Each structure stands twice: as C-alpha cells, then as structure tokens.
C-alpha cells in the first residue's frame, strides 16, 4: 500500500532537526483542550521558525524530521494536531517511543528511516511511501529503504484507529 504527498523537511542550517519534543509540537499551555478540531492550529507553534506551519500545511503533506521526533510527553494532542491538519505521514530517523505508539493508535503514519537525510528530496517535492515494503519513492524510483510498518501498525492504520481495530478483532 502506497501513500503520496508533498514534503516538508524540518530543517535548521540545512540539517534535519533532532529531538523535536512534544512541547515544540504542541505546547503545554494548550493541554486543557479536548476538542480535536481546535488542535491543528497549534502544531509546531513552539518550534522556532515553524510557528506558521498550520497556515502553510496542506492536506496530504508529509513531514521529514531527524532523530527522536516526539520525545518527551505522552500527550496525544501532539499527534492529533497533525491529524487535524490532514498530514499524511511523518518520516523521521527515529521517534520517541510514546509518540510512536500514540501515532500508531490514532492512525497517523509514522515511518522510521535512518538515512532520510541522505536522499535527494527537496522541500515541496512529491514523494510516495510504500508502507508495507518500507520504500520512499520519487518519480517512480525507489530512493531509499525505510523500516516497513509493523503488522500491528498496519492493522491499526487500516482500521482507522485502535478502537476500530479492537472492534474488528473481537
């Protein structure tokens, strides 16, 4: 199964940013919000240089980041804000463990790709991601291998979220 979208590289000085924490993604001053529809506009509002991301992002976009994306808090809002913006996937060198499972449970695609900074992809270019094979593709050509989705990740993604997946196996 493939998804496609336009790439946003979260870069600083030409390098993908490491350790983007959950307070940069979704700041703790908005934690009282429970209405998911309200969350998209605060995505990256505490990440220097990316505060206007919600205005620039379009449905289907794909985010690239460095190591340990989503480290820190267990807040689901740091996932839900991207779902509200219609972000298709996040590709990072690695993810914070809690962030990764929160994303999987909410049906947001997260793909680990150790060498993502070495491939020839420019901001704004369209790519495809093969979720099963773990391939990142541009103009029909495989650029690099990423870690394929795990079986449970794919199953939850197909069902929509953890709740729907659980109903399907009962």
């Amino acid at each position, binding site marked *: 199964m493939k998804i496609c979208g336009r790439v946003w590289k979260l870069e600083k000085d030409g390098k993908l940013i490491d350790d983007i924490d959950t307070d940069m993604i979704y700041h703790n001053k908005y934690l*009282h919000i*429970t209405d998911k529809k309200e969350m998209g506009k605060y995505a990256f509002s505490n990440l220097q240089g990316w505060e206007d991301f919600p205005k620039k992002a379009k449905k289907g976009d794909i985010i690239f980041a460095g*190591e340990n994306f989503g480290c820190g808090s267990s*807040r689901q809002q740091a996932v839900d804000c991207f779902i509200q913006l219609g972000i298709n996937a996040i590709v990072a060198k690695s993810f914070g463990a809690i962030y990764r499972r929160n994303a999987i449970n909410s049906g947001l695609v997260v793909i680990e790709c150790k060498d993502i900074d070495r491939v020839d992809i420019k901001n704004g270019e369209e790519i495809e991601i093969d979720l099963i094979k773990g391939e990142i593709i541009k103009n029909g050509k495989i650029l690099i291998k990423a870690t394929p989705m795990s079986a449970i990740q794919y199953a939850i993604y197909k069902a929509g979220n953890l*709740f729907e997946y659980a109903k399907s196996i009962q």
Partner: protein
Amino acid sequence: MPTIIEKIFQNHTGDRVEVGETIWLEIDLRTARDFAGANVVKNLIENYGGNYVNNASKTFFTFDCNAPANTIEYATNHQICRKFARENGIKIYDVDSGIGSHVVIEEGLAYPGVTAVSTDSHFNLLGAVGAFGQGMGDVDIAFAFKTGKIWFEVPPTIKVNFLGMPSDAWSAKDLALLCVKELKRVALGKAIEFYGDIIDSLSLDGRITLSSMVTEMGGIAGFITPDKRIISFCEKNSGKKIKPVYADDANYEKEIDIDVSTLEPMVALPPSPSNVRRVRDVGDVKIDSVFIGSCTNGRMDDMLSAWKIIKGKKISEDVKMKIVPATRRIWKEMLDKGLIKDFFEAGAIVSHACCAGCASGQIGMTGIDENQASTSNRNFKGKQGAGNTYLVSPATAAASALSGYITGGDEI
C-alpha cells in the same frame, strides 16, 4: 534467560515474549490524570456505549499537573473526571494527593512485578520498585480502561553497570544527569537494567530520581532490582507478600559500563536534558529562581538534602525559591519535622503537593530571560515557562538559592 521486563511481560500475557514481537499485555493498574484524563473520558464515551471500565478496582484517576485547578478549563476537566469516576465506581486521588506515579507507590498499588499504565510519560519511574510502568496517550489509556489490556512491542534490554563509588558529594540526580548524557540515543526505545554499588546504596527516593529520568534517556523503562528495604516498604503499603522479579543470566542487547567514581554535582544546560556538564565547569550563571520538586526530586530525601543547606540561612534576595513536595504524605512529614518552618524563615515558598511547573502548572513558571535552577526532569524550551531552565540536584538548587548563582551542593 529473560530480562526483568521479559519476565514481567511473560507473567502478564499468553503470547510468546520475544524481543520485537507484539504481545497483548494484561495491565494490573490503569490511571489517568488531570491532563489527558478528560480526553480519556471523551474517548471512552465516543467509542463505547456504557460499560466503560473493565475492572474499577484496578482503575484510578489522579490529579497531578494543575492541582488545584488555576484555570476554568482545568477545573472543568477535573470535574469531567470526577463525574465519570463516580458514575463508574473508580477511586480518585484528588487535588490534595500529589503526583500520581508517587501516590500509587505510597498507596501500595504499584510494587515489584506489577504492570501499570498512565497518561503520565514519567510513569516508568515505577521501575524504581521493579514494576513496569508506562506513560501513554489518551487513546491507549482509554483502551486500557475498557479492556484491561494494551499491545506492546517487546523491547530489547540494555544493562548498565555503574563502576566505582564516588567519594565526594553526589546525589541520585547527579547520577541521573550523567546517565542521560551517556545513554542519549543508545537507550532509545529500549528497557534498561541498572546495576552497581551506587545503585545498591540508593534509597527508594534516589531510585525514583534515577528511574524518572529514563524517559529523558529515551528508554522505555529503567529497572532497579528491589532490595530488602524496597520489598519491605512495598509489602507494608500493599499488604501483600511480594515476590520480586530478578534477571538472572539474562540476554541483553548490550552492556554499558559507566564510571561513577568521580561523580560530582552536575547540571543540564538549556534546552536539552542531555546537555550535561559538571557544575564547576559552567562558570558564573546568575539565577533568578529556584524550583525544588517534581516527580524526579519531590521526595523527602530531596527535601532533607535542600533543608540541610538552607536551614538557618537566608536565600539570596535576588532569588525566588519555590519548594513543592511530590505528595501529601511528604508534605505532612515536612510539617512534622519542622522543614516547612525553616524553609519559610530562609525566604522560600512551600506549596501544596503536585507536579508544579512541569505542565504549565502553578508553581515554577519562568518569565522571558529568567534563569531557573530546577530539580525537574526537562529543560526543553518553553517547558517551564519562557525562561531558561538548568536541571540540578536539590542540594545544588539549595546552594544556588543561597549564592544567587548555579552552585554545587558541595560548595556550601
């Protein structure tokens, strides 16, 4: 042979426990707290028509972050949790109780071998008593409330051997900071087991300090094998006979030796917990405020350590010092032993038990350009206000409050 996490998992699943495998894990203890608690309730109501809780006696709410509420939004979220709890027969540890991860240890709900999940990312500090704790988002926790289970990918375990014993002043926080520095990237997504003479010497409070910062090491959970003192403490609080879980001759992904023979007061400079230096190497850093508390350093040992330095002295007039015990029980002990009076006379503020500044709570926020020496676990930009957070031990925080500069606890 299995590691500690593998043994605990095998005791809680019918699935085959092997590194990388996804298993369904039975969860002994499920809690939600004020931040995300209302979202958990919302998820349950949206996805299930009634019958929301698999086992009410294993399910709890705690109010840690914004307690008592200082905004209408938080007060409303608290009330959503209270109402849901009453309707479903769930016990609440309300706004006077303290930090949930500590309350469940004190109340005897978390003890060696237990599996526990919460909306608190520092719930893995339960590794301090040899339990498996895990912080998760509201989807996971709602699912755990409803089913009593979660999915989990069995992580590899790394073994950390601390070599040597420091002779000079050191604290569990200095050890934790050194460990965050050494294990950055190495521990990401893994379980950790800690061993060494320095571990054997740690009290429960010191073990909590180290385990609480496993989240900042990127680890899933950090286990410390319970010793007699811990087992006896947990047996007393839980009223249960406890059989701890040990790893014997286990298969580790990696073993790492960290020399601690020269451990001394450490500081993590903003904006990353792994940005760790020796205090004596950072030069003069003027501070405006000090915060002692959080799930990392809000226990009695931490309060005593700061008190020994502060007692009978006055803090710098340029510094505001904020002290927040982790739980109501610790608050009472501070009251009974006279610490609160001495802190008051030194010029400090002592607040009620809670997480304080870590999640835009009440005590511990910084203003723009404000420098704060803090005993909490994270110094990310914006985490504790708009200023700069320097992570230190309670002793270093107290010494810094007296001098007005980042000062090692050994220098006073």
